[in-house]
């Protein structure tokens, strides 16, 4: 009986791969939760105590914000998911970087402040969007493929507003503001490159495996789960706060 069952029963899912994926995502979520996306009390406190141009300090803060900002990283992972050529990766990452640099500096300079929960919910939505885009959902559902470069630019602009809102929460001194902003932005790009190096290393190994073709679908669905959950958290936060 048992032998018969074993002979005819095939695991319907690649469990090992799924468990590995789930662990990865859980680790990502837990790391994010532990570090929190917000500017930490300590950093914010530091910024409020100092004045003048402090390039290294603000480069550090920018890099820290990016490396610990799991929503930015999830989106970035989604963008390069199916990009193989380094030229393509450089193009898309540059488009994203230009987008968020523009709105970050402009947003702080002209004190454009969007509610942090709303902007974070939008950033979480960008993760869902990119996962759906990777799955080819827009082509299948609506018969059109939205321009991926334009989408990267638009979401880059939105991510920049998120950064601008965070910096304005810093209550940064007007003395040396522009220099510090540029330093912070430089730090964001450095942090992004550091994170990208890690993501690409993992992706390259993963994509070299046969299993990638099977797991790509599940991975993007899991990315949607993370995006939806973050959206829910931020929208709830908007109504609670």
């Amino acid at each position: 009986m048992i032998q018969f069952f074993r002979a005819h029963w095939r695991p319907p899912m690649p469990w090992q791969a799924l468990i590995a994926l789930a662990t990865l995502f859980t680790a990502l979520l837990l790391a994010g939760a532990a570090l929190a996306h917000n500017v930490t009390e300590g950093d914010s406190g530091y910024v409020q105590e100092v004045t003048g141009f402090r390039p290294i300090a603000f480069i550090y803060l920018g890099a820290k914000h990016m490396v610990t900002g799991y929503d930015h990283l999830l989106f970035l992972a989604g963008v390069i998911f199916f990009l193989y050529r380094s030229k393509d990766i450089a193009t898309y990452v540059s488009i994203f970087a230009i987008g968020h640099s523009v709105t970050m500096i402009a947003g702080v300079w002209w004190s454009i402040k969007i509610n942090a929960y709303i902007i974070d919910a939008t950033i979480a939505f960008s993760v869902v969007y990119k996962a759906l885009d990777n799955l080819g959902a827009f082509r299948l559902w609506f018969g059109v493929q939205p321009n991926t470069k334009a989408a990267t630019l638009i979401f880059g602009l939105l991510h920049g507003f998120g950064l601008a809102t965070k910096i304005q929460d810093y209550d940064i001194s007007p003395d040396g503001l522009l220099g510090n902003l540029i330093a912070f932005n430089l730090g964001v790009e450095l942090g992004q490159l550091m994170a990208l190096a890690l993501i690409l290393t993992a992706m390259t190994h993963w994509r070299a495996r046969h299993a990638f073709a099977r797991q790509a679908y599940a991975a993007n669905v899991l990315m949607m789960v993370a995006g939806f959950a973050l959206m829910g958290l931020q929208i709830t936060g908007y109504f609670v706060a």
Partner: protein
Amino acid sequence: MSNRFDISKAPLRAEPRHPAAAAPVQSVPATPGGLIRSTLLAAGAAGAILVLFWLPAEYGIDPTGVGGLTGLTEMGEIKQQLAAEAEADVEAAAAAPVAAVEATPATAAPAPEILERLDRIDAQLAAISAVIGTPPSLTEPAAAATVVAEPAPEAAAAPAPDPVEAAVAEAAAPEPATPEWRDEVSYTLNPGEGIEVKLSMEEGQTARFLWTANGSVVNFDLHGDGSGESISYEQGRAVPEAAGDLTAAFTGNHGWFWRNRTEAPVTVTLRTGGDYAEIKAP
């Protein structure tokens, strides 16, 4: 030796082991219906994570009751409460510098370091005046307890002038006769509520005290501030009662902050005696 270089035994060239893997995967096979199902599944999973774990732990929102069972709801409630209190502190601190600027408009702009120091002093003054300004009505239960600036964070940085002097001698030298208490106050704290009672003391004065949670337990912080200083003498969690001597490390207000972290109301009773000017109780 000769077959060491036998070319016929050498591999012809390095073949990739999986030629098929060279073709990059750039899309996934999917159907419109399948994708809708996957999207709904993702949204449903996200909703479950949110409702079961994330919302209880972050905001104390627990529609299913699971967060109450796992204890995550308590975490969220404490986080929300601390956030609200921190915000109140910030507002209290922000109000003080405004008053200071209005009071001294003519002076030339001082160095930012001095302004920051002034701001901190003003914040402490505001906290103290909040204690002094509250009329001591002992009959009133501690509903909506006035939580005066949490002393714990600033206490860490405060220099203790003399640790030995500042130390609280627990149950030191019990009085042979019944001790003479000058004041007795009693408060009922609902779950999550806190209250602060302080003694106005000169540096070096020693007061005797005895407090009890009347059979339950409370968290406490025995601390003092004034003269531009602050100190935390002793802290404890889930403590049923305490007694001893309190020696003021500096001139100012020294006393207790209690918080009820249990799930039922707790009545805290404090008796004080010895050297102090007056009791400042809400």
